[in-house]
């Protein structure tokens, strides 16, 4: 039960200045583990993706996974870090059943990447630079399930069951420098930072980056200091905050909790906090132990990792365009407004629009089809727009038919339904359904005469120069032809007939 007092966020912000820090663990998607050739696969039967190295049997020797090192260097480069000329692993000693060796093999004093930064964009476009202290290689631990007791939580558990499939999975831990100056945007920045890290590792292809599977996990450090004071306050570290929303909420909550502690004239305790998604609060974990208690020492079973500059440059050359730079480039290329582009990004169709434009559609046509037609259908079907299987070539074909006046927009939408229903290509569906814009002027002129006769007042207005009134006549013609007429051509013919030049 959580009974911590909190201050309102606004009041906390009035009195205090938050300082943040993040440790984000990224699970790499290598085929095998960091130090053993056992498979790195999520969701398999317990204790089947293990061998003697993962179980810490006596006398076994770890061997470093080359791909994991490459992935780590790529992450370092994407975070604008320096890559160490030489680095090594250490043993972090502790007793806990998730680690069968009784130590975790981790980089400590010599990380593979250090001194970087990441520019994080907030929702209104403000860019906030987060300094990266280091990114280091380590291994994941096994998974404990606490059994018995009433709540399934560790307190009150009778025993625990351990699955070592995750033990030894390669991790890169990304550590920021203290983040100052975020002010009241600290919770938003926290979320944006973790989202940016997730996007980068996904874009690099080095992690599946699925937070719900624990591929990206965040420990959030928060401290407060009175405005104007340079020295940091005492921090808390909220562990394993595992969704973007939770990161934002946890930082906000800890700011409010710290503020209440400080307002009461008490010291903040330096400790680990556990995040509870149900109540959106944290509870005290354990007091933070000194780093010395882990008795780190260099891992004697592994030799140093010395990435040659040639290797680093080779890897740099393989890096994809950074996500933020790509977004900026695409928006400029397509000429979308900020709002239009943000909608496209939020709808998750940026890649699809890019492919559609590459297939020959204009930027506005691609946007019209994806945002106007396909996103809505995807929502109705409760799938991602990309999952509907609409091919860029289909959109290009539909757009061309509309442009050529063969069909109008309304028909094109029907044709798209036919394509999604598997009835064939747009051309086949147009043929089969007998869809075609009436372009022979003869029948159109008859319909126009009828429409003008039906609304003589409107015809007079148009003759008198109120050209916008033509819509009413066009509407009548479209109705008479059951939508099969080319509205543009109808308008031309009406104006011609009434002797109005525009």
């Amino acid at each position, binding site marked *: 039960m959580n009974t911590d007092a909190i201050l309102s966020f606004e009041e906390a912000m009035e009195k205090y200045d938050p300082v943040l820090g993040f440790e984000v663990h990224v699970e790499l998607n*290598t*085929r*095998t583990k960091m130090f*053993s*050739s*056992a*498979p790195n696969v999520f969701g398999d*039967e*317990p*204790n*089947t*993706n*293990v*061998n*003697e190295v993962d*179980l810490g049997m006596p006398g076994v020797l770890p*061997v*470093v*996974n*080359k*791909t*994991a*090192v490459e992935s780590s260097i790529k992450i370092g480069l994407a975070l604008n870090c320096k890559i160490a000329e*030489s680095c*090594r692993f250490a043993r972090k*000693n*502790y*007793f*806990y*059943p*998730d*680690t069968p060796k009784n130590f975790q093999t981790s980089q400590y004093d010599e990380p593979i990447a250090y001194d970087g930064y990441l520019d994080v964009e907030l929702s209104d476009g403000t860019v906030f630079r987060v300094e990266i202290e280091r990114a280091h290689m380590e291994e994941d631990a096994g998974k404990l*399930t*606490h059994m*018995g*007791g009433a709540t399934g939580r*560790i*307190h009150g*558990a*009778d*025993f*625990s*069951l*351990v*699955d*070592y499939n995750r033990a030894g999975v390669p991790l890169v831990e990304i550590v920021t420098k203290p983040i100052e100056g975020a002010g009241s945007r600290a919770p938003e920045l926290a979320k944006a930072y973790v989202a940016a890290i997730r996007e980068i590792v996904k874009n690099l292809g080095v992690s599946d980056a699925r937070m719900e599977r624990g591929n990206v996990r965040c420990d959030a450090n928060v401290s407060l200091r009175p405005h104007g004071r340079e020295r940091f306050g005492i921090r808390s570290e909220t562990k394993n905050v595992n969704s973007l929303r939770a990161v934002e909420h946890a930082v906000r909550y800890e700011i409010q909790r710290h503020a209440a502690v400080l307002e009461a004239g008490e010291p903040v305790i330096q400790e680990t906090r556990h995040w509870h998604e149900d109540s959106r609060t944290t509870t005290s*974990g*354990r007091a933070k132990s000194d780093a010395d*208690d882990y*008795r780190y020492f*260099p891992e*004697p079973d*592994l*030799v*140093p*990792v*010395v*990435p040659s500059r040639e290797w680093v440059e080779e890897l740099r050359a393989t890096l994809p365009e950074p996500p933020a730079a790509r977004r900026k480039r695409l928006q400029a290329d397509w000429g979308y407004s900020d709002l239009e582009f943000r909608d496209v990004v939020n709808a998750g169709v940026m890649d699809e629009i890019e492919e559609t434009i590459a297939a020959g559609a204009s930027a506005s046509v691609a946007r019209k089809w994806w945002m106007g037609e396909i996103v809505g259908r995807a929502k109705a079907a409760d799938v991602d727009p990309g999952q509907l299987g609409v091919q860029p070539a289909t959109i290009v074909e539909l757009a061309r038919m509309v442009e050529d006046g063969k069909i109008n927009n309304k028909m094109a939408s029907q044709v798209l339904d036919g394509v999604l229903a598997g009835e064939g290509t747009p051309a086949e569906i147009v043929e089969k359904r007998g869809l075609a814009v009436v372009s022979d002027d003869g029948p159109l002129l008859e319909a126009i005469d009828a429409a003008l006769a039906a609304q003589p007042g409107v015809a007079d207005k148009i003759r008198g120069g109120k050209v916008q009134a033509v819509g009413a006549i066009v509407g009548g013609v479209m109705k008479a032809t059951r939508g099969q007429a080319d509205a543009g051509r109808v308008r031309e013919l009406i104006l011609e007939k009434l002797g109005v030049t525009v």
Partner: protein
Amino acid sequence: MAAINRDDVAHLARLAHIEMSAQELDRMAGELAVIVDSVKSVSQAAGDDVPATSHPIPLRNVFRDDVVGHTFTAEQALSGAPDSEDNRFKVPAILDEA
């Protein structure tokens, strides 16, 4: 003489999960100091031209290709476990989370 007192030894014993009697703590405090001093004498042999190293073998970049090798079955993995349940290792509930 290295300064290792009885409290240091008690702290280390606790971290290493080793139970030690009062006499053992006293004795070890003295012995550990001698051991540390002995190891320290190595640094007298190394001049300024000898860089610090964590590894005596001049090897670097010993890597393995990312290719799946052998694994145990769950039965094999658990064959040495004192207790198991549902193909998992069964351990006492431990409150001191690492």
